[in-house]
């Protein structure tokens, strides 16, 4: 009799051991797995994007100081490259315009970095006039002065103008002419340093909020975001999907490829950085264990995943060809993926579809 019990127990143990989830099982769409994927997106994609922007703006500020000590063509080349790196890192971060980047309803930080992002309005003439007034004026160019400037007059665009063209009426883009202006006007360097310092301050502030604490709380935005304890009641995954969708829509509808970074001709590189980040968001990085696309595949949405990858490839080909027309179409497809296929595949609720006319 005891043997019979023993056999039954062994049999039951065997059955039980065959159940459960193992590390090599395909992932399934579940709340727990979605939480893991979300945390990995934040830690392996978003936070590195935040760090990268903070680092690049710091480098830009440091190289501005180096350049101003001895303005040479070589130093200008290095400085211009640092601006391009900061611009690329911004486009990566610009997928996440919420929280620390969108911290004030009237003066959101992101507009002070990239004024184009607000409504697609090109403020190049505004920064040209402003820079010239600062260089030719006699007023004090201290930190307070620059921190009080409106968003249309600062940020990457104001720096692009001062680094990639002369302030004189001919708007020369020749490096010797630009260096010559810096050599003959110490105020031009003060403007450059003031603007880079402001940008660096924003980079550090965003990093601090995401990683250490926000102005109104003792915990980091990362913690509040992942714990879903933000006051606006936002759900993390739907916030991320909505933000990526908004960025794709912005890149498409505001003709960023032809409007942004015209002097440095960096727009395509910036868009490429934004798409790389989108790819990390969907497919993960080398450190990722559960990606959004792997969850979709496990949930039976393989066709949608293939379609998304195909659309991403289409965007990359358009970027490589620098073709704004095909980019417009391809970004529109990704926009559709973000609105429908991805939320459906992840069983994420984006809320009611409040349409015009309701």
């Amino acid at each position, binding site marked *: 009799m005891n043997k019979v019990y023993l056999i039954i127990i062994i049999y039951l143990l065997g059955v039980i051991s065959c159940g459960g989830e193992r590390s090599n099982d395909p992932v399934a769409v579940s709340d727990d797995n979605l939480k893991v994927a979300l945390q990995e997106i934040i830690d392996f994609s978003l936070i590195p994007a935040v760090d990268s922007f903070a680092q690049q703006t710091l480098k830009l500020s440091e190289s501005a100081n180096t350049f101003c000590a001895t303005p040479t063509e070589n130093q200008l080349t290095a400085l211009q490259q640092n601006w391009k790196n900061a611009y690329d890192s911004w486009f990566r971060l610009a997928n996440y315009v919420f929280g620390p980047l969108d911290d004030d*309803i009237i003066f959101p930080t992101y507009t002070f970095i990239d004024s184009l992002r607000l409504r697609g309005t090109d403020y190049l003439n505004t920064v040209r006039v402003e820079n010239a007034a600062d260089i030719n004026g006699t007023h004090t160019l201290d930190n307070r002065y620059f921190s009080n400037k409106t968003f249309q007059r600062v940020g990457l665009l104001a720096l692009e103008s001062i680094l990639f063209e002369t302030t004189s009426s001919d708007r020369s883009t020749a490096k010797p002419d630009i260096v010559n202006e810096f050599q003959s006007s110490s105020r031009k360097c003060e403007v450059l340093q003031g603007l880079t310092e402001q940008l660096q301050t924003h980079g550090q502030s965003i990093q601090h909020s995401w990683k250490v604490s926000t102005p109104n709380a003792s915990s980091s935005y990362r913690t509040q975001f992942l714990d879903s304890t933000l006051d606006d009641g936002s759900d993390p995954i*739907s916030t991320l999907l909505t933000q990526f969708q908004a960025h794709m829509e912005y890149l498409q509808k505001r003709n960023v490829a032809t409007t942004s970074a015209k002097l440095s001709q960096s727009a395509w590189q910036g868009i490429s950085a934004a798409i790389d980040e989108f790819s990390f968001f969907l497919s993960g990085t080398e450190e990722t264990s559960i990606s959004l696309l792997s969850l979709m595949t496990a949930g039976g949405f393989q066709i949608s995943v293939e379609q998304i990858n195909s659309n991403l490839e289409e965007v990359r080909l358009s970027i490589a060809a620098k073709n704004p027309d095909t980019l417009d179409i391809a970004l529109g497809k990704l926009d559709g993926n973000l609105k429908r296929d991805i939320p459906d595949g992840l069983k994420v*609720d984006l809320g009611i579809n*409040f349409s015009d006319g*309701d």
Partner: protein
Amino acid sequence: MNKQQIMNNQQIMKKRQIKNKQIQPSLDTQNRRDFMLAMLSIGVAPLHLSHSKSAMASTQQLTQQVTQQVSHRHQVSAKKQTTLISAQGKTDDQYGISWIHPKTGKTKTVLTGFRGHGLSIHPLKTNTVVMYSRRPGTQGIEVNLATGQIQHRFKCQSNRHFLGHGCFNESGAQLFTTEADYHSGQGKIVVRDGRTYEPISEMNSYGIGPHDIQLMPDGKTLVVANGGIQTHPNSGRKKLNLKTMASNLTYIDIESGNKIESVSVAESKASIRHLSITEEGSVIVAMQFQREIANHNRTVPLGGIHKPGAAFALFPAPDTVISRMKDYAGSVTYNNKTGIAGFTSPKGNIAVFWNVHTLEFVGHHSLQDVCGLVVSKNQRYFLLSNSFGEIRHIHATTLIEDKSKRLQSPKLSWDNHMVVVNT
């Protein structure tokens, strides 16, 4: 706006309220219901109400006569419970009307089979609400909140569809619904029997796509938001006339159906859609800007105020605020106590507030997919709802949320509009 300004505004509003009460009987819903109960208590049945002008006048006299009895009865009656009501649901099988008692958090849902939009509290029938289908639906229902039963279903006539809103006249004997004649494209105000909802007659809305409709404080005038956008059931919600669209705010005489005044905002692609009326008779409008057809990239204010006979005043705000609303204001309400108007933008995940006297932007509250917006019965709060089943209380003066009053009904998805009633 500082605290002193708010207090001054409150004092001014209080004086105005007192003044208004002296010259006309109170016409709020509660008193109408009390009035009907009092009528029954003195043997006057609601069926005696007529649509004629003289009958309306005698009704008002009677209201004044019974006011004292009502006041007394009100003092001894049990404390009433606040109920928030809204269309609800995300899918065909979930669409319904739901209500929640904020104090207990208890909810009730009645499935309707269609997506609802605007609601009206019935002035004659206790615990009764009418809900209209969302454009371009063709159904409406009357629901009893006490029994949870749909008491009436009504439909549009052929070649017509609802546009989402309606309102009763003062006596509750007539219901006015905004509808579209989809053959001619013309907007219509259909006059219905307030009990059976059968059409009695109809008026021109004096525009295309009439959406919200409200009764002015004089009880004789309707104000209609002609959104200007034409749709046809065969093409769903597709906008058929964006190039030529022309929105207006029109005042109509209830008796004659004649147009009293029609006004427009300067921006032709701004569609006036929702309304809130102040006690003084000014009309606050919420708009939706048709960006896809606009020939410029400027931000367009989505809120404004119109006083009959005067020009429109738009609520200005920094570009960043208007930009955040993403060209879409979903609901509007006005707090007579504080002089503050609230607007929601579900696309921008935000509720924004302006002082209507100073036209100052005075505050905001971020909430994902927020759209429902109403002032609490005691006017202490703006109440917000969203499609994730949340309800929040925003203090009407400070515009700071009272987090202790948060409500969450995860299974519910509150839709565009919310109304409040004491049951």
